[in-house]
């Protein structure tokens, strides 16, 4: 592999790497706007000019780093000469003369390429004093589609958005119109920017020209607290950054993972946190007065009374009927593992994980086939691997009626939790215990309802459609009496057996990794940021990628 020196730092790169990427490898950021590693190199913004010396011979002009490819030894690149600095300064001036400088009302402020490079490479005063700025009257807030708004005055004409729709989304709704200083971005006549990945253009737009309808004016970005997380929209498990302020989630942004979602995520996933705001929240444990069997009123209590009630109910049920467990594709693998241990202790055979089949969500990837999710939950695979597999279909038929105790974790496992008939069927269990973050009709029908955290309030792992286990962090703590299900389950388990109290996600993961062959050799703390592929034997077609239908049929 050829070696290249950038500002005195020498790195070895694959032949054909451009100088921007080589710079990143050497720890040098070559400023750039139009270059994006997944889009055709167009060399348009001219921000990436550098000085290149080829075996002691300086190239006559400054070169664009994005379109200069290292193919052999002997290149020495400088990004810090007076000449380069002068060029960067000149380019920044060009970008700014016609820019509205409306940072105070711009959503991009704080994470804006123009602000950042101006600060680093620009000058503080303007020589554009006597002329009028170019504006695009009437083009300040054009909805390009349902999710993206264009303010043409702010655009720096880098064409990233155009190339994204053409080359990644494959839909090509956007184009460059007009020319010279009047050039503008727009949708082709009769088209709107409505592909499933549309909002990615907001992410790659270096400035505030493209904003997300959902996030517009929602928050100044410097107030956002950000944590690495996983989207729960489907089983692809796009890596995201969950961005929130004081427990109020403001947006999801895709987080780069070349194995899973590359730089992208779908618009549906981006909106998937909205259920946390829309649906009513279960805020305190509720227990039905003794012997009510669905008729006496439920009352709010503290956690110990509630867990006592569950403990009593389960212990007392021995011999009076079946005990069944209904899991969910939204549980973390660790929660599912504890839930399955509880089921083991009770000798419960019925422990299925129902998930909804959603529309397909497909994310294009680099040098890999696209990845597709068909289930509307992130972790059916992890839950099943952790031991939640087996038993009949409780959602249909009268299986629940034979149950002395039915424990559901959690209340928002799918659409069925909102379907009055299904709720009525599940209600026929003598004792219905429901864990949940939402106060769904199912939670309202429960004899014991336990308020637990949603995925922004807890940490854990999910196993995606390609059997990759990925860890996510807690973005913010739950409030009030809400506790992570892991805590609750560990409390509950320790009421039956010693050794289960006060478990953290890390301990549970390491324990399941030591017990489950699929996870062999993994540990919470050493789990790579990009996740790890599980060892799933070919011989388990029921758990393979053939789709949820097959998997569920086989588990019945």
């Amino acid at each position, binding site marked *: 592999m050829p070696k290249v020196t950038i500002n005195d730092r020498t790195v070895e790169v694959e032949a054909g790497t451009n100088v921007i990427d080589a710079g990143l490898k050497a720890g040098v950021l070559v400023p750039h706007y139009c270059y994006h590693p997944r889009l055709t190199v167009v060399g348009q913004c001219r921000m990436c000019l550098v000085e290149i010396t080829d075996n002691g011979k300086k190239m006559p002009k400054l070169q664009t780093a994005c379109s200069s490819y290292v193919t052999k030894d002997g290149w020495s690149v400088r990004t810090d000469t007076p000449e380069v600095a002068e060029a960067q300064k000149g380019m920044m001036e060009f970008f700014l003369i016609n820019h509205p400088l409306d940072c105070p009302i711009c959503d991009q402020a704080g994470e804006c390429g123009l602000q950042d490079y101006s600060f680093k490479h620009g000058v503080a005063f303007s020589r554009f004093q006597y002329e009028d700025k170019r504006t695009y009257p009437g083009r300040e807030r054009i909805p390009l589609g349902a999710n993206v708004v264009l303010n043409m005055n702010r655009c720096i004409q880098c064409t990233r958005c155009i190339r994204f729709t053409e080359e990644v989304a494959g839909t090509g709704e956007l*184009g460059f119109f*007009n020319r*010279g200083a009047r050039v503008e971005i727009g949708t082709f006549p009769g088209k709107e920017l409505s592909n499933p990945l549309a909002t990615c253009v907001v992410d790659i737009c270096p400035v505030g020209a493209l904003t997300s309808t959902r996030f517009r004016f929602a928050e100044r970005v410097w107030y956002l607290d950000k944590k690495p997380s996983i989207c729960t929209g489907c089983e692809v498990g796009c890596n995201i950054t969950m961005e929130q302020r004081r427990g109020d989630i403001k947006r999801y942004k895709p987080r780069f993972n070349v194995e899973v979602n590359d730089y992208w995520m779908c618009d549906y996933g981006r909106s998937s946190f909205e259920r946390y705001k829309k649906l009513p929240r279960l805020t305190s444990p509720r227990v039905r007065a003794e012997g009510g069997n669905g008729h006496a009123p439920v009352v709010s209590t503290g956690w110990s009374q509630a867990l006592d009630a569950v403990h009593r109910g389960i212990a007392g049920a021995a011999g009076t009927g079946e005990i069944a467990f209904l899991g969910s594709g939204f549980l973390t693998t660790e929660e599912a593992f504890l839930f399955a241990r509880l089921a083991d202790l009770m000798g419960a055979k019925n422990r299925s994980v129902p998930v909804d089949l959603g529309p397909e969500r497909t994310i294009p990837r680099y040098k890999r086939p696209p990845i597709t999710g068909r289930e509307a939950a992130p972790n059916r695979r992890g839950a099943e691997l952790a031991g939640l597999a087996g038993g009949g279909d409780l959602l249909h038929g009268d299986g629940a009626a034979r149950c002395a105790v039915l424990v559901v974790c959690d209340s928002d496992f799918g659409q069925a939790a909102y379907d009055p008939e299904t709720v009525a069927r599940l209600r026929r269990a003598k004792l219905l215990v429901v864990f949940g973050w939402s106060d769904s009709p199912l939670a309202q029908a429960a004899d014991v309802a336990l308020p637990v955290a949603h995925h922004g309030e807890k940490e854990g792992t999910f196993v995606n459609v390609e059997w990759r286990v990925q860890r996510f962090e807690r973005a913010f703590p739950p409030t009030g009496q809400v506790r992570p299900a892991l805590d609750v389950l560990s409390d509950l388990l320790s009421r039956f057996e010693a050794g289960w109290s006060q478990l953290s996600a890390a301990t549970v993961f390491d324990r399941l990794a030591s017990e489950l062959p699929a996870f062999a050799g993994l540990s919470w703390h050493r789990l790579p940021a990009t996740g790890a592929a599980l060892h799933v034997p070919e011989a388990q077609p029921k758990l393979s990628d053939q789709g949820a239908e097959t998997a569920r049929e086989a588990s019945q």
Partner: protein
Amino acid sequence: MAAKFEPVLTRNVGKPEALTLKGYRQLGGYEGLAKALTMEPDAVIDEVKKSGLRGRGGAGFPAGMKWSFIPKGKDKPKYLVCNADESEPGTFKDRLLMENDPHQLIEGCAICCFAVSAATCYIYIRGEYTKSAVILERALKEAYDAGILGDNVLGSGFKLNMYVHRGAGAYICGEETGMLESLEGKRGQPRVKPPFPAVVGAFGAPTVINNVETLCNVPHIITRGADWFKSIGTDEKNTGPKLYAISGHVDRPGTYEHPIGITFREMLDAAGGMWHGRQLKAFIPGGASAPILKPDQIDLKMDFDTVAKAGSMLGSAAVIVMDETTCMVRSVARLSKFFNHESCGQCTPCREGTNWMELVLDRLEHGEGTERDSQLLLSICKNIGGQSLCALGDAAIGPVKSLVDRFPEEIEQHVRNRACPFPRPRYFENGA
């Protein structure tokens, strides 16, 4: 120039019979092609190399060398694209060739195609050149009917198809890669180089791009030999006959053929001198993008290297002559308006810089300039120069820089007077 120069490229101008294949043949046409077909393709390239023929489109790149960059081998098709987009202000020489001697161009294209083994040639013609396009189309048809084009060129077994492709009227489509994009049906905007068209050109295949006049020279080089060609001109590197399109304040503006390297004074005399006996104030030697020269350069040899040494360029050899009534600020403001209008807008320095220059120059012309504007203009030029994606950016700064460098007193006058010191000519009155 010892012996009297006989026109070469324009020898058939004014002979309507040259428009027909029969007439062109009677005048000696297609002998070059017939001869080339008996040679090895590489020998044709060598002959053109030896002739010293340099591109007549603007950059003056040696044509034979350009042809030799085309990879050999048959794994990819190859193309010739003839640049007939002629849009540089002041330039009207290719048009003369196409309208009066279309077969000369077809013959030149055919020889080039044979030399580089291209089976397809596109003549990309400026959209406004309707007459040229019609004449070329007619000539092409005749050539096909006579077996000069098609599956078996002059019975040699060489296969060649030639098409006229009409542009939609954009200066930037004259830039070679902008032209390729346009030819492929895309928005006409230049591509990043490398890769160069000789490697990845039209439809991803190796492509030669040459100007009309360049290609029109080729049949003569083949029939009369590289040595004859080299005998015309200033030196080894500036050879052959050259068309000069002279316009502005001269008595008889038009396209003239001279040996390359004739002095500007001789050329001016040939065009009847300054009109109405006026004084020469300035001249542009090579189209709108060439820096403006002052009368002290009147004895300049008009060839590629001498003009470059004098701080300008021969470009497309479109010579624009200005007399003492001309306001340089207004002239350059108008040129800047052109470049701003024609910039494709994809790259930052050209998109923003040409616009800014136009605004500043407009301001100066209207008496709203400041002392600092000269510096500002130079600095904008510096930030565009060598940093734009294609050469349009560099072209746009040529006139501006030369205005500041060579006519500083005129800018000062505009600033001091708070108005343009020149009477506004009547033909400018409707806002042009």
